[in-house]
């Protein structure tokens, strides 16, 4: 089976994010870029499926040089090879990203496309579904279990606590939820071997994407750092007094009940 895994780079989760002086962009240069945590589960699931039925796992990213390290991590984690599609020099929205990735995937013709449920930085939650719709293939999000049937993929999804089971024809696209698996830690030999695996570079020109299609229909008006103000009242007295003060605050100050 030919399996494609979409890998997004995100600032390390503990990064301090600042807003640039222009007031409408976040400062991300200089931050450590890592593989989006949800994509680790997608990669692991892809590798497990390949281990069951053979084939190839290709890791695919869109961006610049900052993606090389996350792609190396994907190769160490079991991907056979990787492709880095170079992003255009202007800002694009998730719509544009999806158009580019779909163009590449249409040529690649994978049997299965996996991605993380969402990216933890911009939480766009739309690129995978858009790609599937552009390609005209079935798709399902928030998958917590996969099962290979004869000629179909059976998946279980988590929908706000409801567990829903569906069968998908190939080719198909799924996004995976945390809990589907526990990603392996690559061994030192795997990490060294990954250094030798190939990462193919592709430009938009080579892909044949029309830049006019990528023009955003959304503009950033402003960006602000959000720090909710908190009362930080540490309650005093014995336990009973603390709890009484708390419940009184619930009703009288916060009007909660």
């Amino acid at each position: 089976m030919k399996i494609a895994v979409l890998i997004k780079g995100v600032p390390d989760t503990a990064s301090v994010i600042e807003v640039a002086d222009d007031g409408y962009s976040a400062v991300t240069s200089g931050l450590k870029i890592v593989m989006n945590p949800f994509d680790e589960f997608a990669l692991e699931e892809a590798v497990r499926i390949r281990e069951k039925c053979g084939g190839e796992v290709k890791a695919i990213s869109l961006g610049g040089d900052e993606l090389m390290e996350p792609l190396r991590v994907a190769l160490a984690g079991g991907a056979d090879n990787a492709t880095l599609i170079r992003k255009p020099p202007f800002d694009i929205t998730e719509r544009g990203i999806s158009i580019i990735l779909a163009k590449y995937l249409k040529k690649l013709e994978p049997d299965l496309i996996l991605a993380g449920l969402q990216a933890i930085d911009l939480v766009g939650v739309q690129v995978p579904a858009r790609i599937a719709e552009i390609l005209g293939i079935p798709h399902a999000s928030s998958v917590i279990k996969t099962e290979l049937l004869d000629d179909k993929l059976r998946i279980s999804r988590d929908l706000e606590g409801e567990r829903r089971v569906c069968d998908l024809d190939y080719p198909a696209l799924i996004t995976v939820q945390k809990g589907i698996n526990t990603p392996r830690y690559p061994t030192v030999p795997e990490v060294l071997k990954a250094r030798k695996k190939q990462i193919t570079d592709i430009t938009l020109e080579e892909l044949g994407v029309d830049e006019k299609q990528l023009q955003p229909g959304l503009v950033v008006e402003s960006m602000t750092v959000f720090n909710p103000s908190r009362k930080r009242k540490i309650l005093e007295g014995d336990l009973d007094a603390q709890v009484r003060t708390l419940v009184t605050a619930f009703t009288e100050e916060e009007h909660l009940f």
Partner: protein
Amino acid sequence: MPFLTVLQPGDRLRKSCLEATAAAADLAAAAEADLDAVYFGSGLEQNMDLLAGSGIRKVFLYDEPLLDTASEGQIAVIIESLVREMDHKVIVGSATTFGKELLASLSARLDAELVQDCIDVSWKNGPVVTKALYGGKVHAQLRFTENPALISCRPNVFPIRSSDGEMPEIVSMTAPMESNGIVFVEAEKPSTDMPALTEANIVVSGGRGMDGNGSWEILEKLCTEIGGALGASRAAVDSGWIPHSHQVGQTGKIVNPDLYIACGISGAVQHFAGMRESKIVVAINRDPSAPIFEMCDYGIVGDLFEVVPVLVEELRQRRS
């Protein structure tokens, strides 16, 4: 050109869909546009009273039991043709797992822009939305420059309109359901009466301080007492004490209840990413230097196993 609110299929109208409808109604009023709604499946009749006074002009109803379990892709095909026929300019839905996948599918079919999980919407010659980025550390205001504009609203943010007032007109629709390469097999509804984590007004979460998987009953009792949903930190989930579906944080659910009670949670930055927008945060922790106390409104330094039962008892007494 009218606006459209998308009501999710199912046997009940989700609270989060009514919230998204209220946001859509405010936008439509500001833009002096009519608001339509679309509903799929067989459950609308017993829910009609919830739509009184909602600001909806017409409900396009696809009353077909098969649609109760249709996939987002299958439903997007039907909404696409409705939107193309009626020329809806702004399309609003709820940012549940299903709602997000549905709007993403629809936005691709319409080649339109979509902003998911918005926490504010307003109208300035077009929709302007606010979205939380980077684990909620940054808020971005985005303006649509094209039609149609697609928006999903984060649950528990937008107040619902009171349900009295004019009833919408029902327009019965039919549409063939295409298989689209996906077949529904079965569904298992949640086994508890607890509200969904992302839609709950109150969330009670446990962390490393829970010390194992046998002790969660103590938090469940508190949930039952105050109508809350049960959450957990990543540490508790990764220790195998509670399923991942309860996890709040960067790799779990993002919640914004009126009240968030963190029990035995130290307060890692990744946890804040999941509950930063909560209106009131209460922290119960043995360690007075835990970072959660810097980010709470009310803190009790103490053992959660001693504090929580006293809290449950106090709440029970006040109510009776």
